[in-house]
């Protein structure tokens, strides 16, 4: 009975008695969720347009952030470095399309998935070789990102918000809005959606697959750069950051592999669920449950909706 009480009653009692802690936890979850959602967004962009499950998204985040910081360390002004990093991400997208995707066109999904693994190894090695393996500090103040925290009294306690987190939420929202407009309203966006629907049909109406792939990988690279700046400013830029890519996977299957709104809603659910779980139920299990709790949430959803919350219904024909 005691254990049942601890699982089903006690956490909610705590939430009721100290709402300030609940709000703080929810905010932490929200911020983490936004950042997961950003990574998931990169995955979804590529998966929709080319059917490639891009495992390298995590290392692309690290690589972009490292390039930015590394260039700045070598005396390039911050905003020039930012522009140069964008150029590097474009070169990466072009290289990937030219050397990896084009020769592998029409191969089965798992082969393409493996190829992105090769890309991950390649980028890990290259990043360390060029910029060194030590953690670096993100050039937050040079990019005019706010620092410090806000504390205010609320609900009988203190709630503290980091300014950088607020900035992250705002930038992520802007980014999602821009991407949504880009997808819905522009000519290229329409082409992207056509490719996502059917490669062959898109080809037959004169859409260049190669061009589209470069564009989506570039877009994913930009998303990776934004994620890298935000995440790097919160902690530091190091190769352990690529682990957050694994955190984005439950977000993906929760939201559905092909849905942009899914990536965002999934990110928020996972981020908030994970922080609540860790804070209220974690001590029961000895802590550190963050590593797998997200997967359990996602699995729970999957049992009822195998295609994720917003994924396209899987129709099979014999």
């Amino acid at each position: 009975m005691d254990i049942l009480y601890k699982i089903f009653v006690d956490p909610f009692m705590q939430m009721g008695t100290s709402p300030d802690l609940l709000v703080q936890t929810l905010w932490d979850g929200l911020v983490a969720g936004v950042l997961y959602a950003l990574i998931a967004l990169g995955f979804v962009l590529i998966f929709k347009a080319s059917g490639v499950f891009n495992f390298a998204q995590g290392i692309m985040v690290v690589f972009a952030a490292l390039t930015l910081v590394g260039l700045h360390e070598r005396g390039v002004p911050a905003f020039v470095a930012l522009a140069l990093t964008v150029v590097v991400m474009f070169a990466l997208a072009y290289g990937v399309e030219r050397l990896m995707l084009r020769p592998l066109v029409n191969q089965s999904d798992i082969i393409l998935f493996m190829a992105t693994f090769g890309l991950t190894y390649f980028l890990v090695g290259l990043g360390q070789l060029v910029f060194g393996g030590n953690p670096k500090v993100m050039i937050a103040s040079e990019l005019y990102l706010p620092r410090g925290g806000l504390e205010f009294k609320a609900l009988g306690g203190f709630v503290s918000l980091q300014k950088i987190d607020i900035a992250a939420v705002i930038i992520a929202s802007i980014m999602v809005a821009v991407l949504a407009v880009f997808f819905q309203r522009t000519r290229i966006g329409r082409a992207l959606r056509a490719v996502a629907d059917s490669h062959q049909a898109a080809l037959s109406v004169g859409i260049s697959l190669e061009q589209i792939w470069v564009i989506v990988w570039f877009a994913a690279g930009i998303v990776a750069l934004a994620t890298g700046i935000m995440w790097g400013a919160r902690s530091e830029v190091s190769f352990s950051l690529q682990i957050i890519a694994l955190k984005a996977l439950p977000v993906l299957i929760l939201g559905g592999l092909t849905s942009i709104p899914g990536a965002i809603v999934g990110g928020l659910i996972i981020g908030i669920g994970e922080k609540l779980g860790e804070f209220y139920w974690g001590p029961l299990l000895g802590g550190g449950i963050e590593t797998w709790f997200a997967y359990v949430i996602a699995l729970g959803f999957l049992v009822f909706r195998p295609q994720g919350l917003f994924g396209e219904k899987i129709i099979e024909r014999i």
Partner: protein
Amino acid sequence: MLYREAGQYKTNYAADMAVFPILQDRIGIAVILLIAYVAFPLLGSNFLLNSVLIPFLIFALAAIGLNLLTGYTGLLSLGTGGFMGVGAYACLKLTTFFPHVNIIVWIIASGFFSAAVGVLFGLPSLRIKGFYLAVATLAAQFFLEWCFIRIPWLYNNSVSGAIEVPLRTMFGIPITGPTATSVTRYLIVLSIVVAMTWVASNLVHGRIGRMWMSVRDMDLAAELIGIRLLRAKLLAFAVSSFYCGVAGAMMVFLWYGGAEAEVFAIDQSFLVLFMVIIGGLGTLIGSFFGAALIYILPIALRAVPAAFGLPIHPAAAEQLTFVIVGALIIVFLVLEPNGLARLWQIGKQKLRVWPFPY
């Protein structure tokens, strides 16, 4: 010229369906086994046995395990590292409770624990497929890893949090623990791997293997011809995890001689998946090729600069290895998406009709 099947008539069905239908293949496998059992232990250095052959065989076994699941049944799994860990920790607990039973028995038996865990985490496979399933198996990986760190009972409450392999003997000869020689350990690993490869070969050539392959090719159609999907998929998970579990137990007891939970981290899962795909999905020999390439290639690459006397910093060499391995994986996939096993097959076919092109 030597590799011909001319004059070898098959007079019954069994001979026609044999795993090695050509005499030269049978001679070849006998020679390989002879070299593995006699020449390597007699002539091989400690380094060769300890750092090349033992790990190669263990990884090959793990790759076979994953290949049964991913290559033969078409279920993508990223939980291999976790399942290997279950084998290792189960073996440690078993030999702690029953120290007088031969350790080899426990290494094999630990596979059953791994199989049970595999079946548990294989349950979602009935509802979800493809990448969704891959991510679901990641849940197994992370949950198991967490267990290995957070439950001290699993590693006998040792202070370091690592598995410490106790000394175990057979006929008075130490086979695990610090005093065991590399030759003994090598021979045991080799025997287990050979025996289990033989079992796997029989499995995939028989009814069960055909059942798995039909599920892989199209599960709906397989269900229509009367295959029970739940049983087929769970059996694949069980057998695959069994193999991985035994590989994990051997890895700790016969190779490392002690290990922490990080050994069974997600990287290990990816490494084994690499081996399976580079080697060739759905081929047993491919698992060996893949293990050889992925495991031995970095060792060879590290030896290259030293051999030419180039002064490369060890860290830089490590990073360069990453770059080269990554690039090679892509190159291999571009050149031959069906893996090294396909190259081997093409080579054999060319030999058969040599000097004619076809």
